[in-house]
Structures are given as C-alpha cells and as structure tokens.
C-alpha cells in the first residue's frame, strides 16, 4: 500500500514537536476527513532555521508532514514556497491514489506557516 519511504517517515518521523515562540505556525486539514497538520517555523534572515510538526492523521499524513520538514530545513522562504504537495508525494516515491487529495496537505501547512510569519512581520 505505502512505499518504503512512506513507511520509513511514518515509523521514524523527522522533526516531530513544537517550537516555542515560533516565527510562524500553519495549520490545515479538518477532522471530518481525519487529517490535521500543524507546522512550526523558526525563521532567521528569510531562512528556515528550524521546523517542527504535529499531525493527527493516517500514515500518509504523518509521512508527508515529516518529509516536508526535511525538504525545507535550511531553505529560504522563496524556495520553501515553491514546494508543492505533489513534490512532497514524489519525494516519498508516491502515495496511493486515494491518499493524494485527502492527506497530502503538508506543503499547504508549510505555506500557511510562512504566510503567518509574513503577517506577523507585517510584510
């Protein structure tokens, strides 16, 4: 059902947790479909110094959350904004079709977190 990469990120998720006084926080999903993702960012000079996540969801939801944090750590905000849900799925060697729309929301959560940071900074 899931690729080895998905299972790897599901069983050993990277960057789980919260960041105190985060520069930006993004949350997406809804309980109806069973996915809620929250991403915390620590931004310095437009660079993502640290990133953490908390996710309520299925294997795909946890794996995409974990993957997106790996993809953006150390990247600039501009680079991070270019990461799409599809790119996250691809980095995991794909997701089952049923999961593509439902739980592939990690990039959205990231973008929300960046938006939150921008707003806080008044940009």
């Amino acid at each position, binding site marked *: 059902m899931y690729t080895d990469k998905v299972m790897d990120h599901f*069983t050993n998720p990277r960057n789980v947790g919260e960041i105190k006084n985060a520069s930006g926080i993004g949350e997406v999903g809804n309980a109806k*479909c069973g996915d809620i993702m929250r991403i915390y960012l620590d931004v310095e000079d437009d660079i993502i110094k640290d990133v953490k996540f908390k996710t309520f969801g*299925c*294997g*795909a939801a946890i794996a995409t959350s974990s993957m997106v944090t790996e993809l953006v750590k150390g990247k600039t905000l501009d680079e991070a904004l270019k990461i799409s849900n599809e790119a996250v799925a691809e980095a995991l060697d794909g997701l089952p079709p049923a999961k593509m729309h439902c739980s592939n929301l990690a990039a959205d959560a990231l973008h929300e977190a960046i938006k939150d940071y921008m707003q806080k900074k008044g940009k």
Partner: protein
Amino acid sequence: MKRVYFDHSATTPVDSEVAKLILEYMTDKFGNPSSIHSFGREVRKSVEEARDKVAALIGAQAKEIFFTSGGTEADNWALKGIAAANRKKGNHIITSSIEHHAILHTCEYLEKQGFSVTYLPVDENARVNVEDVKKAITDQTILISVMFANNEVGTIQPIKEIGKIAKEKGIYFHTDAVQAVGHYPIDVNEYNIDLLTLAGHKFYGPKGVGALYIRRGVKITSFQQGGAQERTMRAGTENVPGIVGLGKAAEIAKLNMEKEIAHVRTLKNKLIKGITEKIPDIKLNGHPELRMPGNVNFSFLYVEGESLLLNLDLKGIAASSGSACTSGSLDPSHVLLSMGLTHEVAHGSLRLSLGRGNTEEEIDYCLEVLPEIVARLRSMSPLGAG
C-alpha cells in the same frame, strides 16, 4: 515475527476440518448436483446434508435455507426480493442507520426504484429503540430489516422485541445476522425472524458462500435467473465444496458454541480491562454488556485509526478501524457517527475482534505494545493535551 490475528469480524481462517472436506469435494467428489449419474448423486446428497446442518444452527427447517455466494448477496436478495414481490402491498421499508453497506446501499438502490425507507436512529450504545420501530410503521410497511449484531461495535439489537412487533403487524422481518451466526445462539422461531442472512467466512467456513433463510410462506422473488437450482429460487451451479464446507462449519459452531463464547469472552474482558487500566483518554464503543462476546472497540482520543493500525501491524497485530482513511472514503464510520461520536473521536477508533484461536499470551502481548503506540502517536498529535 509473531503474528496475532484480532480481526475475526472481517473474516476468519477456515477450520482445518472444513478445509479438508472442501479439498475432497474439489478433487474427488467434484460432480455437478444436477447430474443424474453417480458423480452427481453423491454430491446432491452432500448438499442436502449441509442444508440440514445450516438449518439446525438457527432452528430452521432445511427447506427454508437457500445457499448464496455470501452475506452481501443474501442481503441484496432479501431486500430486493421482498420489495419486488410485495410492492402491491406497500412501498415502505424500515431499517437502522447502522446496518452494513450491503443493506444500506441496497436500500438506497430501492429508494431510486420508488421505495421509501426509514433509517432508525440508535442510542449512544448503537442500539435501536423498540418504540422507534413501532412509530415508524405505516400501512405501507412491508419489511423491517435490523441487523442482529453490529460488525463494528458488536452491539446486539433487540431482535426478539422487533420480531414480536413485526409478527403482530404482519410485516416481514429480516435480520442480517452475518456477525452473530455461529457465535451466538439464534432461533428463528423464538425470535420471529422471517428472513436471515448468514455468511460462511465469518464463522470459520469458506469465503464465497452464505445463505438466506426464508421462512416457509414468505413471498419473495428469485434472485438470479437460469437453471432450476435451489428450487428455482437461486440459479447457478451449486458451489458444492463451499456449501459442504458451510455445513461443516455450522455443525462445528453449534457443537462448540458455549465453550467458544466462554473462551472469547474471557479474553475480551481481559483486553478491555487491560486497555482501560493502561491507557487514559479512551472510550469503549458499543454496549457494555449487550455485545458480541469477541468484540472490543475503543476510541483513543487525539489519535487517528489508520496510523494506529499500521503501527500495530508493524508489531504483527492485525486489527481494524472505523477511520475513513482505512476505507478510502472521506467520512469515518457511519456507525460511530450514528452513535453520536464526533468525527475526531470516530477517527480514533480501533476494533479488536477475537476468535477461537486467540490466547491469553496474545492479549498480554497486545497490552504490552498498544499503550506505547498510543503514547507515541499522541506525542505527535496537535490535538488534546498532546
């Protein structure tokens, strides 16, 4: 790795005696029961013996048992067959909101054909209220279909009371007893059941075979057209090995029922007690007493079912969940929602359904790994105390 099967409500392994018999009827006694030569006659006899055994399990007469390809076919047949044969009498059907999809989707199909269907609500324990049944009856009502025991939370319905009402009003009463047959004593006469669905693969019989019990005199149309099998009510070459296997499974179930209920209930109580003691923020789903002896169903708050399942699977434990994600649909289990659970709580449900092969050691093992898994997932969850 140790493999522990706690998903008996989904399907059961075939009993080894049953499997041996099926093998014999595939290679040696392979005739077609419609044939008049010896190959045909020997299997015709075996099919009728199997019918006797299935009938005996539910207190029916052999002539009232019609073999089908499984529970879904029997459910479809019961509803569509009664609807078609009694349309002149009325167009109203009563069922519950927590039926299996084989009933619910067939009801939706019938609604498109012009029938009107009442879906009874259930209480927080997934029980239908007998008064609601009474109130739902109109002069158009031709059928009441309420499941014997629910497949997700194990709640047993007030079948006897509903049967009594149906009988008094002269309305046919069907029960989908797929989860109960072979695991719980059923007598179609005591309960005034007119039609009953059962499926082999839920009580150590083969997949692909089931039966519809149709009380003598009930007006129902045939399901498949073709040859004259099953007294012209269900055409198609009989699945002889499957039928013979179903018969054997019924015989074994009847013989061992008391012993097995006791065994499974002991394990269930131990598991419920252990989970309750070891894990906070949980909710037992289904009726505390009126439930199937092997059914355990909990919601673990702040946790999602599929990730719970996958983690258990990695530890070798097979279970099931009412989370949407396991079924490919968007909404979580209609059963849990009907019981009043919120979406989040429904998503965090886990069903552990025990069977005759399970052991105390397996329960201990589960009680060892489950708390860790729940704790780990909760530490990742944005919800709750997390």
